């Protein structure tokens, strides 16, 4: 187990990258702490699998270094990095039994057969696959196959990091949940550093202590699931996480005040100084549907559509040309009704060119 440091990592699949557009990873600086459960979340093509393959050594980065516990491993091949990786499609050795599959990484390293037996038995118990140890691995169901590939990663006790590359893709929906909690449980037992790559926010938020959100080869935010939800530092995070995502409203900034459709919107705190004046750049207001309420005063809006999704309703309202989604529990206004929207000031923020531009006031009380 180890702390993993990525330092000024850049990667391009082109031999001679010119502009920043040629890079799939743009300057990544990151520290993964020993024993943490991390998720790497982002849409398809954002570079998260590339990053994973660079950590595992399957890919050499164009620039930058990778350190395990401070030791530079950038030039080491995968088998010398002592890492484990679980792939999107379960990789099992068809001709072997489940036992031999789990023993394979140990035997390749010349581990004593008595130790192999001990480790395999222990891991099989953890994964609930003890009764299928002597069965051929070829006939297993996809979820059991995926369990075996996880087991092959965990069977070595000197493993630095276990990485999961969208491991639940081929698993039946009703089994995803059990496999996910199994994974969480395993992490608590073995305390290995784990990195879980996914584009599914539910998977990321349930598995990880810390979520790293990536977009377009960049890390946009690192934080706990609560932090990502409560205070997204980039409009992408606000939009990507949550269902429906954060409302992003066009606005003007005048005299340190945000104006949306002519209405002053109270923000969580003062606006950070921009380059020239506070109105420079593209400014937007971000507010989650959960933090808007209907009231007698506030921004006047018209209800366009109400979708009752069980526990709460998602109400689509329009202010001018802008669509604003509101989540209400209990009675929702009727379609076509004129109403007023009230934004919770502590959850309303200004974003400049996508990045957060308000300072949170320290909670006084």
């Amino acid at each position, binding site marked *: 187990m180890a702390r993993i440091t990525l330092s000024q990592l850049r990667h391009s699949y082109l031999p001679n990258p010119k502009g920043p557009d040629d890079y799939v990873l743009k300057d990544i600086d990151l520290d993964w702490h020993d024993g943490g459960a991390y998720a790497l979340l982002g849409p398809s093509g954002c570079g998260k699998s590339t990053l994973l393959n660079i950590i595992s050594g399957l890919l050499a980065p164009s620039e930058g270094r990778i350190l395990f516990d401070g030791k530079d491993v950038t030039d080491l091949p995968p088998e010398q990095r002592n890492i484990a*990786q679980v792939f999107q499609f379960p990789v099992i050795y068809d001709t072997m039994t489940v036992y031999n599959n789990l023993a394979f990484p140990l035997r390749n390293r010349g581990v004593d057969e008595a130790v192999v037996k001990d480790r395999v038995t222990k891991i099989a118990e953890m994964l609930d696959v003890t009764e299928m140890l002597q069965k051929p691995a070829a006939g297993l169901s996809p979820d059991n196959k995926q369990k075996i590939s996880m087991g092959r990663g965990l069977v070595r006790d000197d493993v630095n990091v276990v990485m999961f590359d969208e491991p639940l893709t081929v698993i039946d929906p009703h089994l995803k949940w059990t496999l996910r909690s199994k994974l969480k449980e395993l992490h608590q037992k073995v305390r290995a550093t784990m990195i879980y790559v996914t584009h599914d926010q539910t998977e990321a938020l349930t598995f990880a202590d810390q979520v790293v959100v990536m977009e377009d080869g960049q890390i946009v935010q690192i934080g706990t699931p609560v932090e990502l939800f409560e205070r997204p530092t980039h409009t992408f995070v606000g939009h990507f996480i949550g269902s429906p995502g954060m409302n992003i409203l066009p606005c003007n900034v005048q005299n340190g005040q945000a104006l949306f459709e002519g209405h002053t919107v109270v923000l969580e705190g003062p606006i950070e100084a921009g380059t020239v004046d506070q109105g420079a750049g593209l400014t937007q207001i971000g507010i989650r549907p959960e933090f808007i309420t209907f009231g007698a005063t506030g921004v006047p809006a018209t209800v366009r559509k109400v979708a009752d999704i069980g526990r709460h309703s998602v109400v689509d309202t329009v202010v001018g040309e802008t669509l604003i989604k509101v989540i209400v529990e209990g009675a929702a206004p009727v379609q076509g009704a004129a109403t007023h929207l009230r934004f919770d000031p502590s959850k309303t923020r200004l974003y400049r060119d996508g990045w957060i531009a308000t300072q949170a006031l320290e909670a006084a009380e």
Partner: protein
Amino acid sequence: MKKTYQKAWFLVLPVLLLVAFNALIPMMTVVNYSVQETFGNNLFFWEGLGWFEKLLNSDRFHAALGRQFMFTGLILVIEVPLGIAIALAMPRQGIWVPFFLVTMALPMLIPWNVVGAMWNIFTLPDIGLLGYFMNHTLGIDYNMTQDPFAAWATIITMDVWHWTSLVVLLSYAGLVSIPDAYYQAAKIDGASKWAVFRYIQLPKMKQVLPSPFCCGSWTVLISIPRYSS
């Protein structure tokens, strides 16, 4: 209840007729000949199973069948490992892939009787390119028309040249169907090159490799009728 239209059988009638005239009827004629004896003039006498009895008791037939099995065994022992080795050495991506695939397929595209005629001339001791080269340039005594060992060596070389490509293409098809993740997982698991071959590549090729063995048995089967003529 679903209604069954028996008239649909008429739709397969054209194919049935075609197959009857170019395969079934000629084959049954041969079966008919096999139980007859003739001295010409289209005059036939009933012979029963006599021919079969004679054939099965013939030492010449036994020897020929033995040689046929030996031939098949030898070419498989050469072609299968050689084909796998070539397939492993072939690039799996890049601009050279089509070049290698076409080069590999070429010998197979030549009809077998042309292969025979071609190699016959090629290996003739004094006028064939190979024959002349062996005898008069290298000074190795080589005469496949007289010497049994030279004849064996020639037909085996010929078959290897003609059919190794089949093993290459089948193995190659098996190899390219292996997802990258398998190789990556094996690397991470610390598998040696041999382990990758033994546990990932060979199992994949095993699915396609039985066909050369079938072809091998086929050459034995189709050779049998020739002895009877």
